[in-house]
């Protein structure tokens, strides 16, 4: 099946700083989603982005499918951005399930 790797595994930021999270995947994807898992464990959908660029407020994401990576940008970070960020990919050859990366644990300090 498809392999998904995220970097960095841990990230500590000062409030107001910008950051870039990376997701590499080993095969072509039909679906690529970014999630934020809050401290209560809820996975919140951020982006559905198998290719191209999207923006939503302070967050934006870019997927370069031909080079098999996706980036999540967080600008002007806030303490409420803390949590774990996951990317997950779906490959037609591997069925309809999402394969998750190991996550990036973000802590934003005031």
């Amino acid at each position, binding site marked *: 099946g498809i392999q998904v790797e995220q970097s960095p595994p841990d990230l500590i930021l000062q409030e107001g700083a910008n950051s870039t999270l990376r997701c590499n995947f080993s095969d072509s994807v039909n679906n690529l989603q970014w999630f934020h898992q809050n401290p209560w464990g809820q996975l919140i959908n951020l982006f559905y982005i198998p290719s191209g660029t999207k923006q939503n407020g302070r967050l934006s994401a870019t997927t370069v499918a031909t080079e098999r990576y996706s980036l999540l940008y967080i600008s002007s970070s806030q303490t409420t951005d803390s949590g774990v960020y996951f990317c997950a990919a779906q490959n037609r050859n591997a069925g309809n399930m999402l394969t998750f990366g*190991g996550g990036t644990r973000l802590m934003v300090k005031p």
Partner: protein
Amino acid sequence: GAGVSQSPRYKVAKRGQDVALRCDPISGHVSLFWYQQALGQGPEFLTYFQNEAQLDKSGLPSDRFFAERPEGSVSTLKIQRTQQEDSAVYLCASSAGTGVRDTQYFGPGTRLTVL
């Protein structure tokens, strides 16, 4: 409902007990998935339903795990004779269609602790 709901949110079981975890998907969603998330790791796929048909159960770790979705809406994940390694968060997700390009929406999870 507005989102995917799961119950109970927390479950403590003694080793050897059977447990049943419930998932209510978003109304009208055809596809339903179960994932298992161990502490500090990303979720891992368990099983997939399209309406009432279980099309993929390749991720179920053993024959003690059983899932059903008899009427194509609510799903139940049952774990028989629970063991300590079953302790995890069990997440349910649903998507509107049947294709590989559909966004999956996740419920809040059930945290299972086996003592």
